[in-house]
């Protein structure tokens, strides 16, 4: 067990208990041992003066892709967990579209073991909805949950069959886990590479209409209502989706939803010049969509921010737009980009942002963390919200470099990350 740590004089923000005050915080035996002004350091404790910095519950990302097993050259559980703690994340949920697919208890157990071995951010596996993510036969939710899965999803692909989605939502109730869906109507999506709109018309690229997402959002909400199951809607990208979820929440449908930092900050104009770092699925939409997603986050219609961290080898992205894979990485830029774009621009307060990046996602997936009450596991991040820095993908800890934010000047940097009271990221 690491030695006690006293964080002195920081602004402690804990959205789970509406705490926002300048005070000391003591970590001992891997837990939050004390919060209060003028705390004394126990024998052998390390004391860190964090005056002017923010002490917050560690960030939680419920949507990442860590390519292990299958594409370890792009990311492993260990490299992804290292990128996570660098970005202030103490827990992440890894999607099952690995090779082979994480669709059984042995595969789920492998991710858990790799996470423990890495000893950095906690990597919680998400199991597949269907065997092989083929959209046919339900995977063994019970055994996967027993091995450590926290949700099920066929992410990367939609659950195309409405019958399968209904059964998944019903069956998942036994285990109290959400079914996370990648909302995409396959026949409307067919071959699209970017948002369908004026920019796609000009660039001559096949568009993906907003309706391709919204049809499936509407379907999933109806099925959640029918089944009483918990549906989690991944990476929402359109204004229409926000409105559908808003109305469903008014009817008390069991739905949670996430949005990515890139969908909150970029539009389809980022695809100009055929920049493949702007190619992701769902695609970057229009300014009105960005505005609606931001408002959805403010109102709580969208529960949380998730990165959809999707590593790809540099040479795969160095291709014609049609030929490049979908996806970008986000763990190491999320806080800086979100702080700059949402807090500094007055969309959210800092405690609200921390809620949407830590407390709310932990709650959505019933994960430990996301709060700092006394006795809680000490998963904590220390943030500097005054220091500007320039995003340099060459310095990422992720194995991949595919970020659209390279060269961007942001304010908000992660100074220190603690997992179970142990310092796993530190910039003294």
């Amino acid at each position, binding site marked *: 067990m690491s030695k006690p740590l006293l964080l002195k004089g920081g602004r402690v923000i804990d959205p789970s208990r509406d705490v926002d005050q300048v005070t000391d915080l003591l970590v001992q035996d891997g837990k939050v041992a004390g919060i209060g002004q003028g705390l004394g350091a126990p024998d052998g404790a390390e004391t860190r003066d964090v005056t002017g910095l923010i002490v917050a519950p560690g960030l939680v990302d419920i949507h990442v892709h860590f390519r292990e097993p299958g594409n370890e050259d792009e990311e492993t559980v260990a490299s992804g967990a290292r990128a996570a703690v660098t970005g202030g994340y103490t827990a992440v949920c890894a999607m099952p579209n690995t090779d082979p697919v994480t669709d059984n208890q042995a595969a789920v157990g492998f991710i858990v073991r790799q996470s423990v071995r890495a000893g950095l951010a906690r990597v919680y596996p998400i199991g597949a909805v269907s065997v092989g993510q083929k959209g046919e036969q339900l995977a063994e939710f019970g055994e996967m949950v027993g091995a450590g899965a926290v949700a099920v999803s066929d992410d990367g692909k939609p659950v195309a069959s409405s019958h399968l989605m209904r059964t998944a939502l019903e069956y998942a109730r036994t285990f109290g886990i959400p079914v996370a869906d990648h909302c995409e109507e396959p026949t409307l999506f067919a071959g699209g590479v970017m948002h369908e709109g004026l920019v*796609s018309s*000009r660039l001559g690229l096949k568009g993906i209409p907003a309706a391709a997402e919204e049809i499936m959002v509407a379907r999933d909400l109806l099925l959640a209502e029918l089944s009483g199951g918990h549906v989690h809607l991944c990476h929402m990208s359109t204004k229409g989706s926000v409105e559908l979820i808003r109305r469903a929440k008014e009817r008390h449908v069991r739905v949670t939803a996430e949005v990515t930092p890139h969908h909150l900050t970029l539009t389809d104009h980022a695809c100009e010049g055929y920049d493949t770092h702007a190619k992701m699925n769902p695609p970057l939409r229009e300014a009105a969509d960005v505005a609606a997603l931001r408002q959805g986050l403010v109102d709580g219609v969208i529960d949380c921010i998730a990165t959809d961290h999707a590593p790809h080898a540099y040479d795969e992205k160095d291709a*014609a*737009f*049609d030929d490049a894979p979908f996806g970008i990485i986000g763990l190491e830029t999320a806080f800086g980009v979100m702080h700059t774009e949402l807090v500094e621009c007055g969309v959210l307060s800092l405690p609200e942002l921390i809620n949407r990046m830590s407390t709310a996602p932990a709650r959505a997936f019933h994960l430990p963390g996301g709060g700092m009450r006394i006795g809680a596991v000490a998963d904590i991040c220390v943030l500097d919200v005054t220091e500007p820095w320039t995003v340099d993908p060459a310095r990422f800890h992720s194995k991949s470099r595919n970020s659209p934010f390279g060269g961007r000047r942001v304010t908000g940097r992660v100074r220190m990350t603690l997992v179970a009271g142990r310092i796993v990221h530190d910039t003294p």
Partner: protein
Amino acid sequence: MTLGKDLVGLEHLSPEQIRLILDTAEPFKEVSERPIKKVPALRGKTIVNLFFEASTRTRISFEFAEKRLSADTVNVAASGSSVSKGETLVDTARNLEAMRIDMVVIRHGSSGAAQFLGSRIRSNVINAGDGKHEHPTQGLLDLLTIRDRHGRIDGIKVCLVGDILHSRVARSNIWGLTKLGAEVGVCGPRTLLPRGIEELGVQVFDRIEAAMEWADVLNVLRLQLERMEKGFIPSLREYYRVFGVTQERLAQVKRDITIMHPGPMNRGVEIDSRVADGPHSVILDQVTNGVAIRMAVLYLLAGGKPELADAAKRSGGAE
């Protein structure tokens, strides 16, 4: 004024740059009328015609333009080359660069491929059609043909007919025409019109009769059979009945109307043979102008002085 390193499309050219190309093409027209069709303007330059998609007309037109300017040319077709063995576009580009070539003419099935290549090699890159994006030399030769026929482009009403959604020719035409002051319309089934087309300053006609009533020039685009197979239209037969540019429809129009087609034509699908072969058609003039336009583009990108183009055809002024 220059064109820059590459010609990727007309969207990012100024009206002055487009006029420069058209004006430079004028003296080159005459070269092709001579018994000895050759000037030394690009002597010693090496050009690769890199065609990832099948093309007869465009490739031959470029090749004639290059040869009539005395360049050394190599044709690379995707089938039978390393491209068909899975070599990436980046690797192809690097290998060409390593052979110290001067220019690449590229046709590729992916939108943006020409820009991608241009940003990675020092040689000049000319887009001979990239996916559904642009086909700038086709747009330019269409402009030149309209200018030849009507004496001007400014104020002329041009309607593009057919599959606008999948057409790179349509996009290059829209940019070139609007920049030079023409009024542009499009006519076709809504399934084949791109989203937001009106925002490009284009008027949409749902009925071909209305389009023909309005236009001074009809540029009839090729309808690919694949569009029916993919469900954009129910049948070629119905397409011809609803959107075909027929002799009967042309007879209803009282004014002089110019008929263009970028080829290859589907006679009896988008255009009636009697119209294509009739007195209103300038379809073969387009092909003739294609060589002059491509000579002008090659000459200008190679650093030729526009004011010397006239002299170039006499004595090889670029050197």
